[in-house]
Structure formats: C-alpha cells, structure tokens
C-alpha cells in the first residue's frame, strides 16, 4: 500500500528539503519506488540537492494545469532508478497549485509508486495548505532552538485542525557538545514540549553541506553521522524498530585541531 508523506516545518531553513532528499534516496536504496514532489513554488531547490537540475523539462504546474501528463514531467534519478522528482515551477507563485489539484495528482501517483514525498514551503499560508492536502502522514522538521520549536508547535496545531493526525517529528542540527554542556535543549526537553512521536535525531554535520554541494544526498554514508541518522529514519518509516544512536562528540584532540586549523 502506498503512502503520501509531507515534510513540513513552519520555520524556514530548518532542513525540510535536505530531509526530503535523504528520505527519498534512502527509500530508493531500500528498493522502494518513490516520487518526490517539490511544492516550494518559485523557490526550486530539491532538484539541486538531488543533482537533477540539468534534466528538468516540465514542472508541477504544467501537470496540475493539465498541459502534460505527469509521467512526462517526472525526472528519473541517475543512480537510483526507482526514484523520481516532480520539480516545482521556478517562475509561478505559491497560488499556482491548489489543494484539490494536488489530491488528484497524488491519487494517480499512489497507483504506481510506493511512496510520494512532498517537500513543503515554509510558513502556514496557501502553499502549506496545498502541500498537506493529500498527505496520509506528516513529518515535522525542527531544530533545538526556541523559534523553530515554537513554529513546529504551531504547525502541529494546524495539522490537527486539518485532521492530519499521523504526525512525527525530526529534530535536525543537534550539536551534541552543546547538549552536553546544557546549552541546547535535549530530546527529552523537546519531547516534553511538543509531545509528538520522534522518528529522527540528526546531528549538525558539515557533510550535509558538502553533499549538497555535490548533489548527492548522504543517507547511508557510514562516514557521516547525519548519513547514519537518515538511514535510521528511513528504517523507522518502513516500520522497523531502531534505537536512537549515541552521537560521537568531538574529542579534545579534534577540537584542538579545528581551533588551530589543521
């Protein structure tokens, strides 16, 4: 049975698109067929993170306005052949797609693919309402910072009002050193505040930036802590019971090396 998942956050820049790309690639690595839909109209980004920016012919608005069948707009991933991207329009604005159109499209996609994952724009305006309309489940991405957690709470409230009750949480950009010294909220703090089931704890990791530079999501890369965290998230989405990992903290030696720039 296929599932439509929306990745949302409220506050911008917390890692929705990064999460979408990694979950998409991770599910494809596990043999699932996946369509990623970028609904951040006017701010196209998911194509870049997947390394597909040069292969786009048509976009979501071409499909929802009925100019072309969706199959023609899907961009197949080079390496993971069961992964497809439906890119957003870079010229239209957020009102170019409405909730009803996305529901119709996702109902079509459900017949052919195991997972449809929707990358949502920041905010709670029309673009958000459109992005969540077709979803069976929502993943809220946040960071361990006051403003990001507050906005996550707001989004969880909005999802509830829209009768989207299957909600889980990913906490991104955790800095274990700061958590250890008490200068960053830890998971139990965020659990107490938001009371939503957590399916991922992703550390702040420089390799997220280098992998974005290359257009190659790092899910499953054993050298990256974030890569391992994303692989665990994918397992949990597939229903596996995976314990949360302990983050390696940078030892004194590594911090010293960094401080000295060697």
């Amino acid at each position: 049975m296929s599932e439509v998942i929306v990745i949302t956050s409220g506050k911008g820049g917390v890692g929705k698109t990064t999460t979408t790309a990694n979950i998409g690639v991770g599910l494809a690595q596990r043999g699932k067929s996946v369509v990623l839909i970028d609904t951040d109209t006017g701010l196209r980004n998911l194509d870049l993170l997947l390394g597909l920016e040069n292969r786009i012919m048509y976009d979501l608005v071409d499909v929802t306005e009925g100019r072309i069948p969706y199959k023609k707009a899907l961009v197949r991933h080079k390496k993971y052949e069961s992964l497809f991207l439906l890119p957003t329009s870079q010229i239209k604005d957020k009102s170019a797609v409405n909730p009803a159109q996305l529901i119709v499209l996702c109902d079509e996609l459900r017949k052919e693919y195991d997972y449809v994952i929707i990358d949502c724009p920041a905010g709670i305006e029309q673009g958000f309402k459109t992005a969540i309309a077709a979803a069976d489940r929502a993943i809220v991405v946040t960071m361990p910072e006051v403003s990001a957690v507050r906005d996550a709470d707001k989004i969880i409230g909005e999802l509830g009002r829209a009768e989207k009750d299957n909600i889980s949480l990913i906490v991104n950009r955790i800095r274990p050193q700061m958590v250890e010294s008490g200068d960053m909220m830890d998971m139990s703090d965020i659990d107490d505040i938001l009371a939503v089931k957590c399916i991922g704890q992703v550390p702040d990791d420089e390799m997220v930036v280098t992998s974005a530079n290359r257009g190659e999501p790092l899910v499953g890369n054993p050298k990256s802590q974030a890569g391992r965290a994303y692989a665990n998230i994918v397992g949990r989405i597939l229903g596996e019971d995976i314990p949360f990992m302990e983050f390696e903290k940078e030892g004194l030696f590594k911090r010293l090396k960094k401080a000295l720039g060697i």
Partner: protein
Amino acid sequence: MLDSLLKIFSKEKSGKVAKRRLQMVLIQDRASVSPEMMNQLRDDIIQVISKYMVINQSDMEITLENVDDSVALVANIPVQNMKHH
C-alpha cells in the same frame, strides 16, 4: 575540576531556560483564538445568561488569561436584574 566549580556558581543553563520559556509561550499560542470566535462566544454567553438575568451587555468583558501555567476564561458580566419566571 575548575569546570565543575564554575558550573556550581554559574546561572541556570540556557537549554533549561529555553525549555521553560517555550512552555510558557506555547500556553498562550495554543490558547489563542480568533477574534471572530471570541465574538461568537460572547454572543452565545449573552444568549444563555439572558434567559435568567438582565445583563448590561455593553459593560461585559470576556478574556482568556494565563493563570500560573494554565489558561482561564474570565468573564465579567454586570447583572442589572433577575428574571422571574
């Protein structure tokens, strides 16, 4: 050693401060209702109370207030007279 001594004398850690502040602000966020809904509520209250009492509608006040760590609906409704059936 020095580190742990410093810890004893330092202020509350910012992670805990963040949690405490968030818990307070979210009570307000979650309770916030639209002005339309407050007006609707006000009209409904007037209707119910008017079955039993004559009230001064223009002086009545209805607000949501934070009391400790919960939210209270506070209504101040001047009664002019009782209705006798």
